[in-house]
């Protein structure tokens, strides 16, 4: 019963009180000793892993991420008290695949937010950044990925699905062109974006996606203002840093692909 109340309370905060969701508990009390802070960090990681499992688990069980599973390592068979086997290996690989995007996005957000706080001499510690980022990614970023997954699997939203994919491709190609790199995506350049073909269902799903993105960025803004006592300008800088982080990520990927490997002797 207690857990159910916590879930309802969490949903209530996520939808109606995002400031309460991202406020670091240490903001209300003294931070305490290093041991105390490590304990809080551990509890945060538990929250994140549970939410990650809630997001990636159903996808894995439904079969997503379990295509092209590599060969099971020899030591895995019979490991973990006899649970290790081909089926478990497939599930574990699928879970890792499905978690990867959310993990990468969380790491990128954590880095962007904390670096912008440190650079503006506003940081009140990594733990406070972690509170805001872990709760906001668990709630809103996971929601964004869930909506994208819904678009990719549902009938009647083909135009919306194509629009979202084309938007992402157009963004990546914009960064590629800015670097002047000779790279391309497997699907090639997208055609002109055409929102005129959207069905009412697709329009509603995209509206939910827009709202989730707005919530995600707003929660990070609140995290900076509440947990690091940043002013409005620095809060906006955090949002800009997070918005710019995919550009940095794609740019770094392009450089990694196009920079010649250092020859070994």
């Amino acid at each position, binding site marked *: 019963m207690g857990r159910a109340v916590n879930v309802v309370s969490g949903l209530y905060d996520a939808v109606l009180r995002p400031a309460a969701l991202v406020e670091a508990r240490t903001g209300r009390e003294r931070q305490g000793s290093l041991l105390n802070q490590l304990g809080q960090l551990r509890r945060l990681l538990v929250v994140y892993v549970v939410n990650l499992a809630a997001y990636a688990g159903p996808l894995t069980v439904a079969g997503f991420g379990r295509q092209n599973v590599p060969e099971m390592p020899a030591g895995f068979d019979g490991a973990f008290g006899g649970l290790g086997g081909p089926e478990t290996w497939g599930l574990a690989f699928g879970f890792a695949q499905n978690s990867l995007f959310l993990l990468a996005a969380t790491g990128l957000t954590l880095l962007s937010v904390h670096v912008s706080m440190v650079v503006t001499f506003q940081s009140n510690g990594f733990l406070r950044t972690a509170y805001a980022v872990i709760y906001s990614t668990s709630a809103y970023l996971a929601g964004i990925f869930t909506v994208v997954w819904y678009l990719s699997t549902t009938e009647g939203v083909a135009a919306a699905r194509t629009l979202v994919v084309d938007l992402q491709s157009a963004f990546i190609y914009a960064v590629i062109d800015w670097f002047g790199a000779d790279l391309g995506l497997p699907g090639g350049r997208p055609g002109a974006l055409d929102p005129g073909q*959207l069905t009412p269902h697709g329009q509603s799903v995209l509206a939910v996606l827009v709202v989730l993105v707005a919530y995600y960025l707003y929660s990070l803004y609140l995290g900076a203002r509440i947990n690091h006592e940043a002013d409005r300008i620095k809060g906006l800088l955090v949002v800009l840093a997070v918005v710019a982080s995919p550009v940095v990520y794609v740019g770094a990927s392009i450089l990694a692909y196009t920079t010649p490997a250092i020859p070994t002797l």
Partner: protein
Amino acid sequence: MSIQSPDTPDEAEPTDAGSDASAPASNRTTTVETPIRTHPTLRPTLVWLGIVTVVGVGLIAAIGAAPGVLGGAGTATVVMRAVALLTGLGVVRFLVRLYVLRQTEYVVDGDTVTRQYELFFRTWQRTVPLSKVRSHELRQSRVQKLLGYGTISLNQGLGAIELENVSGPHALYDDLSTLVER
């Protein structure tokens, strides 16, 4: 002690701790009649509810009248639905807050300060003994001053209790200061 005057639209919003408003001359009474029972004012929440509704409906009407600004009917419809959803959520949020504020009561007696409210047949209560109060602060931004309310914080950073949306806060703050210093 100084009275800070940040801009804070609502309880969960952070404050700008940059204003240097000086404390008005307080008329501290030596005797305070207790218990003092007061409820938070609904005025600021009603104002925000009105603003959110008007801005949301206005945006939807503006987009509907000129969909070409956003690149066509398809995009305009998506944006209108997103604005409608955000406006609806905002309205619900402020309605819930109004309900909670109506159920909230602040009680100051000779020994304790209590903030309590009832919700879904449960009572939430937070009490701080006056003897344990180590700091107290009145925050009133420019907007709050205009609307005649403020927030009184006790023991900020030490297990704080906040009395938000207090109407005519200086009187209550003076009474609390008298009781704490006694």
